[in-house]
């Protein structure tokens, strides 16, 4: 086996790229440093282990993960459809898929209410037939987060599918594999890095989701108050607490994303 990650030779980066690159990095990191500098480190541990923070963090992680799972379940097939099927108006559909990216999340939340709310097009039926309504529930948080985060997954997976060589699927067919088996055993593994990258983006977006969540699912500690909501409300009265919550959210997401990258993306490429 040839060793992966061979030594780079002649890796001198031209100055004209290096300068904006470093500026870009600084641009992304300096606000973080500002947060960290502001954090009330002395009282941080006691604030950190308060029940509210734990509850919000747990809920955030749970909802972001569930939303990611939902996005994978719906988004991967959608990406496949966009990349492989012969669809009329594919360009338009692709543009529509990215709508949640463009839509202000609060508007997305209102849109969700109009459809899935208690008086919404579909929500009204759900309420009528099953006595079930999504707003103000943890499931509602997951739906709101999935709505906003799914484009990241779809775009990423579709890109991977387009880059993947469809002839491998033909090879599988000549070996007797039907479409589903081919998808499962050939297509999916070959686009795994793209799926993981998309899922990671999706998860990160879901974790930070605020506007659609608070609009669609409201805000009730333990049920729908995720970290971003807690941060926003803390900012109203006690900016210190907001900073602590933000730092926690940051730390957790950085750790999770770093681990995922390590485990998946580097492992597969």
């Amino acid at each position, binding site marked *: 086996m040839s060793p992966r990650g061979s030594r780079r030779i002649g890796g001198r980066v031209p100055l004209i790229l290096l300068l904006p690159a470093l500026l870009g990095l600084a641009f992304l990191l300096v606000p973080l440093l500002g947060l960290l500098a502001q954090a009330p480190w002395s009282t941080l541990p006691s604030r950190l282990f308060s029940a509210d923070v734990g509850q919000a963090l747990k809920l955030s992680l749970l909802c972001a993960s569930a939303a990611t799972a939902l996005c994978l379940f719906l988004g991967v097939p959608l990406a496949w459809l966009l990349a492989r099927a012969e669809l009329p108006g594919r360009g338009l559909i692709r543009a529509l898929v990215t709508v949640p990216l463009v839509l202000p999340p609060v508007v997305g939340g*209102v849109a969700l*209410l*109009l459809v899935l*709310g*208690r*008086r919404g097009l579909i929500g009204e039926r759900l309420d009528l037939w099953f006595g079930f309504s999504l*707003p*103000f529930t943890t499931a509602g948080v997951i739906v709101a987060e999935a709505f906003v985060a799914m484009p990241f997954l779809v775009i990423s997976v579709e890109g991977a599918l387009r880059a993947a060589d469809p002839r491998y699927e033909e090879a599988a067919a000549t070996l007797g594999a039907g479409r589903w088996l081919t998808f499962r055993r050939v297509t999916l593994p070959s686009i795994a890095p793209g799926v993981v990258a998309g899922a990671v983006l999706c998860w990160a977006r879901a974790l930070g989701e605020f506007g659609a969540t*608070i*609009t669609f*699912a*409201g*805000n*009730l*500690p333990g049920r*729908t*108050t995720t970290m971003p*909501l807690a941060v*926003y*409300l*803390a*900012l*109203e*009265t006690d*900016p210190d607490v907001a900073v602590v919550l933000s730092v926690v959210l940051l730390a957790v997401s950085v750790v999770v994303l770093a681990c995922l990258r390590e485990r998946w993306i580097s492992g597969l490429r």
Partner: protein
Amino acid sequence: MFRRTVAVALTAVAALAVAACGSNEVPASSTAGPAGTVTVFAAASLTGAFTQLGKDFEAAHPGVKVVFNFAGSSALAQQINSGAPADVFASAAPKNMDQVTGKGTATTFVKNKLEIAVPKGNPGKVTGLKDFADKDKKIAVCAVQVPCGAAAKKVFDATGIVAQPDSLEQDVKAALTKVSLGEVDAALVYKTDVLAAKSKVEGIEFPEADKAINDYPIATLTKAKNPDGAKAFVDYVLSAQGKAVLTAAGFDAP
């Protein structure tokens, strides 16, 4: 040729002299009158009333332009303290005003009361504040961190009602949205908000609202770039014309 040039120059000097003399003769009150742009930071609940007031004010003072920044009072207070260029601050709570100006320098110009907002037709059959303790009803109130939530807490504390909200909204407009979309059976919002959304929302007054009257203070800011304009605007808000607009929007006189 030379002669003509001199003549023109002399005429110009003379004209300048006359103009200078003339300006000395204009009454002092007129020079101190408002001019330029007045920047007003105002609580989100004032959006409708102040937009109207701004237009009236501009009509009354030609050449003056009023620019508004409407947002939550606490956010505005933070912005001003971080150096945002404001001439006037109108807050929905004395607390936020105090963060900016220190205690007692502002004037209370209106009061606002809480009211129960229900969707048109009142599908949840809400009759009064006691319905907020009904677990089977969908209820929204503002989070306690924001002024309308603080006011709501005061009311509940005073009446001993244990509210069972389904959501603690981040501001009063969010609570109102939930009502107008029919997602909740009732929410506690300001009387002015109910009036502003009267096509979709009905208001139910309740006597306990008096336990939490919300004072709206207004003040010119010491760092104002346009102190004259600021003062003129505040005066206009406190004038009879200003009061009429605010009352029409549902605010009570202080």
